Structure formats: C-alpha cells, structure tokens
C-alpha cells in the first residue's frame, strides 16, 4: 500500500523546486546552476564526493546560506529562502550530523525548545502539557521513550530520533538528513529506515545525503549526483548501476599541470605498520612506506585517515599492533616520533602546526633546537642562518626571517611547516590534506616540494580528499573505509573511480 502511495505521490507536483541555484565563496564556486525538485512522499538521495556542493545545497535549503542566483518555488509559487525563519515557515527542517540538542535538558524540553507551552504564571512552562505534547510527537514517529529522560543519557541513534521528533513537531514537510546512518549500528539503521518509510507514507519529502551505495538503492526514489558544484544528472535507482553512479561522481576537472617523476625503484622500508588498532576507531591497519615514495592515504572524510596519521605519530594511544620505523619499533609520545624523524604536517596548520604570532625564523627552527644547539645554548645568529637557508631552499615568499608567520599566504605557511621538519631532519613526512585552503598555483609548488623531499631520500604518506591529487602525485595508495584499509592501489590501478569504489559502502 505504501508503495502505491509513494509512487502516486511521486508522480505528483513537486513540493519544493530549486531552479538555477548558484553560490560562490571567495575563490570557489560552491554551487553552479543547480536545479533540484523535491516531491512529497519521496526520498531524494543526494550523492557526490567531498566538496561536490552537498553541504552548501543543504545550508541553502535551511536558510543558513543565501543563494547568489536562482529561484525557489513552493507548490508552484515563487518564494524567497534567505533565512532560517523562512525555511521553517516552508516546513523545511535539517537534521545535521552535529545535533542541535541541549545535553542536560530532557527530551520534551529539547523538542519544544523556544516553543514551550506557557504556564499560568508568566514566563513559566506548562510542564504537564509539554510532556503530553512530546509524548504525542514521539508516539507519532514510533519512538517509545519517556519524554522526561535527559538527552545526555541517550545514544546517538536515540538522539537522532529526538532530532527527528523535533523537526516533525515543527510540522516539517521537507526533512533534510545529512548522512544520518554514519554513526548508527545495523539495527538502528533498520529503525531509521522504518521511520523514513512511515514519514514517506505521511507525505513528508526527504532529502537524504549519503555515502553508502547500498542505502541509495535501498531507500532512494530519486538520485541527484553533484560534482564540482554542478548537477551532473538526476536518475531513478532502477535506471542505473552503482558503477554508473561512481562514474558520474568522479572525473572532476582540476588543472593539474604538475609533473611528477614516479619512483621506479623504491628504496628501503622506512615505515612499516602492522595490525595497528587504536581507540579512536581504526583497526587492523597495515601500511608500508619506502624511501623515495609518496604513498596516498584516501577514503571519505571520517574513514579514519587522520586517526591513522595520529597513531603513527604517537598522538593517540595504540591498543594493538606495531609501528616499525627505520627497522626499529617505535612507541610512545609525539616527541619520541619527532626525535626519531617522523614529521606530522596537520590539516589545521594554523592551530597545530605553527605559532602564528612568531616569526618565520622562529617557526622554522623550533623543532630543530636540540639538533642545532646541542649545547642547549640558543645562538640567534646560528638560528637565523639556518632559517635563511631554509627560506631560500624552499622558496618561501617572505620579506625576511623576522616576518610574522600569520601574515604569509596559505601556501607559504605550509612551506614553513615543512621547513620546520626538514630542519629537524625528518625522514618520514605525513601530510594531512596538504593543499587544503591553498590556491592552485601554490598547490603545484607544494607538490614539487614534496617530490623533492622524497627524491632526496625521505618518504611521504599523504592524506587527501582530492582523489585527483592522489592520482597525480602518489606512487600508490591505500583506501580506507570505516576505520579499516579497504584496499591498496598500485600506480597502474590508481584512478579516481577505483578510489571512490573502494571508499564507498557496497554491502
């Protein structure tokens, strides 16, 4: 019956239609002429790689961003959508991955936050009514729980149910869910899907962002694929295969002019990770990196790439497994790893990699102080000589070694971080998203620099969400999924399609 209702509804007029939506941020076109129709009683899957424009589209739907161009039609009528209030008035509710719940309030208080039923005395809350209303909403979505339970004591799945209850209580007719199953167990996923079926039957329209191929086919009624902020295609699940979808998602046009000399004959084993697991959610990781190699570590955001880097560097405690560096096992804290010659160049270089208010020179020598000054006496002139040498070697664009690092461009800041570890004599460089926030021209320079590092005998492990960069730069790559290594790609197999296929869920 619900099938019939759904398909009947599906053929009906769209509830909300977006036409030609564009949105730019300095330096990027996040959305480019995207059109998108949401039908009542339908689950519309939104598919795309990291950075394809899904989040921007979602933020426009909930009124957090205002589109630069484009029109919105609600039930055929032209409307504006430029504030959260307008979005709410249209019945649009977004369930973000970070919940909008208050931990130490109960379920009822959370559902009706800001809309509490008034008690007899001004300013007070009608406690009996708020509990009864909450119970009714919870019953309506089939969530059997006492509304007096404090949210902090709930698990992720239950919090998500509360979030959905909150949206439904605001008469949401369009529910936007951002990877709702990312933190759920199989059983919880089943419950969520049952709820989605129920909402569909009630005529609610659902926009569902997912990275899991199985879900796309299990619950999707329509699929829109985004790439580089553009709508690539809109299809029905019955009309496509998973492979076709993957092909639509990849193939981004990025100007990569940088030529790399790939390591024909990799040198000695520098890093060997065997059966590594950590409490941060990674398990059974095996990785090898040799001298002269740039090895990619890819996978979706949240698949455990950064956690692997942190575990190797000693920043998170390892539960089982072994890390062998230069033939000898390595255990302990980051300072041990740094002393042995491992450099971690973190994604957030501003907060983790640099002292922004200090000079370029200070930042360049800070990791090498022991090596430069074994007598433990700081020699300003020696430090300056080293710093100036590095500035020349790395072609850091700075007026002098005394310039404050925070004033340099993103690419030059990144060079300072690399230079810092170069001075310290690092032999293994672990890069976490080395080109994030760096403009195209500087990207090539960073890659040239990494290439020179490995050509001179170092080794590099590079985490990147930009598949195309991995394909252009790396000798080979590991692909992660759900905290595990999902596969290894040799140079000849290293294509965007293969990376996406390994990184996505097919089960």
């Amino acid at each position, binding site marked *: 019956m619900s099938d019939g209702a759904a398909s009947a509804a599906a053929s009906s007029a769209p509830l909300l239609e977006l036409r030609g939506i564009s949105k730019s941020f300095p330096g990027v076109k996040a959305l480019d002429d995207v059109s998108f129709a949401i039908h009542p009683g339908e689950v519309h899957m939104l598919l795309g790689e990291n950075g394809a424009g899904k989040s921007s589209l979602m933020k426009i739907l909930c009124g957090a961003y205002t589109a630069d161009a484009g029109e919105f039609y609600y039930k055929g009528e032209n409307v504006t959508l430029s504030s959260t209030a307008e979005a709410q008035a249209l019945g649009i509710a977004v369930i973000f991955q970070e919940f909008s719940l*208050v*931990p*130490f309030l109960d379920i009822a208080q959370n559902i009706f*936050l800001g809309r*509490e039923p008034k008690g007899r005395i001004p*300013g*007070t*809350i009608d*406690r009996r009514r708020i509990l009864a209303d909450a119970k009714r909403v919870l019953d309506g979505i089939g969530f059997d729980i006492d509304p007096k339970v404090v949210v902090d004591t709930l698990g992720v799945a239950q919090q998500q149910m509360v979030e959905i209850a909150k949206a439904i209580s605001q008469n949401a007719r369009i529910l936007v869910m951002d990877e709702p199953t990312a933190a759920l167990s199989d059983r919880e996923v089943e419950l969520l899907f049952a709820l989605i079926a129920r909402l569909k039957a009630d005529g609610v329209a659902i926009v569902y962002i997912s990275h899991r191929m199985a879900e796309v086919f299990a619950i999707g009624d329509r699929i829109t694929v985004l790439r580089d902020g553009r709508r690539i295609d809109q299809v029905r699940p019955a009309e496509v295969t998973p492979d076709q979808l993957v092909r639509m998602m990849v193939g981004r046009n990025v100007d990569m002019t940088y030529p790399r000399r790939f390591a024909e004959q990799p040198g000695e084993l520098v890093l060997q990770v065997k059966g590594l697991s950590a409490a941060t959610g990674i398990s059974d990781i095996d990785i090898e990196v040799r001298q002269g190699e740039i090895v990619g570590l890819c996978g979706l955001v949240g698949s455990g790439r950064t956690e692997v880097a942190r575990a190797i560097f000693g920043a998170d405690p390892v539960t089982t497994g072994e890390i062998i560096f230069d033939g000898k096992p390595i255990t302990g804290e980051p300072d041990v790893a740094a002393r042995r010659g491992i450099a971690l160049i973190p994604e957030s270089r501003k907060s983790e990699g640099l002292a922004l208010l200090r000079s370029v020179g200070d930042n360049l020598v800070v990791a090498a102080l022991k090596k430069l000054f074994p007598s433990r006496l700081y020699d300003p002139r020696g430090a300056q000589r080293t710093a100036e040498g590095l500035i020349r070697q790395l072609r850091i664009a700075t007026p002098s070694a005394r310039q404050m690092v925070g004033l340099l461009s993103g690419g030059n800041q990144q060079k300072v971080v690399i230079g810092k570890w170069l001075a310290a004599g690092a032999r293994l460089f672990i890069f976490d998203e080395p080109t994030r926030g760096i403009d195209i021209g500087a990207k090539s320079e960073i890659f040239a620099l990494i290439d020179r590092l490995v050509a001179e005998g170092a080794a590099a492990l590079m985490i990147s969400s930009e598949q195309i960069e991995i394909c252009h730069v790396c000798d080979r790559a590991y692909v992660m999924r759900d905290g595990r290594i999902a596969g290894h790609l040799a140079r000849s197999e290293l294509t965007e399609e293969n990376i996406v296929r390994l990184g996505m869920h097919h089960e």
Partner: protein
Amino acid sequence: MSDLAIAAPLRAVQRLPGVAVVLVLLIALFGAIAPGFLSAANLSNVLVQSTILTMLALPMTLIIMTEGIDLSMGAVLTLTSLCVAIVSLATKSMLLGLGAAVLVGTAFGLANGLLVAIAKIPPFVATLATLGMAQGLSLIVSDGQSVVGIPHSVRDVYSAQLLGIPVPILMGVASYGLFHALLYHTRFGTYVFALGGNRDALRYAGLSPTRLLIAVYAIGGLMAGVAGLLMTARMNSGHPTAGLGMEFDAIAAVAVGGTSFERGNGWLLGTLLGVLAVGVLRNGLNLISLPSSVQVASVGVLVIAAMFLDGLRSRA
C-alpha cells in the same frame, strides 16, 4: 538476606553525590571534635552565616552553566555593601540603601554581561577587569575607611526573626526557592541550560544567546546588591574589604556542588549543599580556634575532595 540489608544502604551512599557525602562527613567530624558545634544555636548560626554566600552562589551556578565565570562578585558585594551603608546613613532609610545597592550591583552585572556577550571578552578577563573597578570604586567612596553609625533598621535585618526563624535564613530559603523555580520551571531557565550546552540550538530556535547571556550576568549583579544589605547589616558598618574573597567561596561552592564548567550541566541543590559544606567547614574550624587563613586553605582542600569523590564514582 543480611547481606542485602547492608549492601543496599551502601549502594545508596555510593550513589549519593560527592557534595552530600562531604557535608555529612564534615558535620560528623566537627560534631565529634568541636565543642558546641551541634548545639541548636550554633547550627542556626551556620545557616545565618551561609545566607550571603547562598545569594552569590546561586547566580554563580547559572553563570558557570553558561561556561562563564564572575570573578567580580566579591568586589561588587563590597561596593554594594558600602552603598547600603552610605545611602542609609545619609537618608536614614534602609530601603533606599537597598535600592542603591541593587542598582549598582545590577549595573555591574549588566556591564559584565555586555563585555562577555557583545564585546566577546572571555568571562575570566572581563570580570577580572570589573573586579578591579569595583574594588577601586569601593576605596574611593569609602575613602579607605569603615562607614559607621548606620541606622538600626539596617542592622535589624540581620538580627530580626519572623515566626521564630532568623530573617537571613528566610531570605536564603526564599532565594533558593526563586532560583529553583527560575532554573527548572521557566523558559529562561531552560535557555540557561542551552547557553552552555548548545548555543546553536538556541539560534535554530530563533532565540538570542546574547540577550540571555547578558541577563544571566545581570542577575548575578542584582543578587550581589541584595547580599550587600545583609553584609552591611551583619557588620553593622560598611567596610572597603567586606566582600574580599567571596567570589572564591561562591565558585568553590558551585564546584563542590557538582555543577560542571562545561556543557551546561548545572545542579542548584548541589550548590546549596556546597554552600553549607563551606559554611560548616568555616564554622567548625572557627570553633576549634583555627585562624581564617587556615579556613581559606581548607575550602581549597574541600573543592579537591568533592571533585575526587565525584571522579571516583564516575569511573566506578
């Protein structure tokens, strides 16, 4: 069966919050070693002496729940206490003194709120600055001297009784009742939980965290104003260092009471028990003739003891 009979109360004790255990242990300790501690007169005295701290610790709980702090409370208390003394001396009216104190206190609270919520100065720094200002103003208005000769109507507030219960105790109980109702039964109180727990939730709901935050700090100043009346009444004079260190006791009471400094996890009854623990500790040490320097140090130890007990339980 006997095992169960023993185990059940033990488990109940284990479930008790650290502050309750600490309070019971302190009462038992001083009951044993301090002569006259358990006398009705002394216990009533503990309650009366705890009133001022109650009035500061209650709003401090709300402020800390918003992941903030108010270091100026003690200095503002000094200033409002002087306001009561000076204005009541000049006008012979206790109520005008109270009015002036509430006005000045609320002004400081508002200033704290504006600095934190609008100027976005970290609460620690913002209220440290206003602490300095309040302290300086106190020295200016008092010329560094005690203000004496204030009307009897002020002093009577501290010594009067209603239905055989000292008025300060009644004021303390009323304050607790009001704050309990405010935090747990009003929309405002609900939003205080959200200020520390998830400010985005407030924004999504179309509420202004800024205005709410200012209100929370303003309430702190207002209560410091009311407490100023009791302070002056208690000392029968205005003194330029009257409130010195009171913010320390207030923050300690909140911490001992189990309110967390993050995520908006506050517990008002815990704060009340924390105030009583601080009061019992100071009174008991006084009875066994230990100087106030030792008392201050002991309050520090008390904070650590309560944290330790709570930590033990959460790990168990």
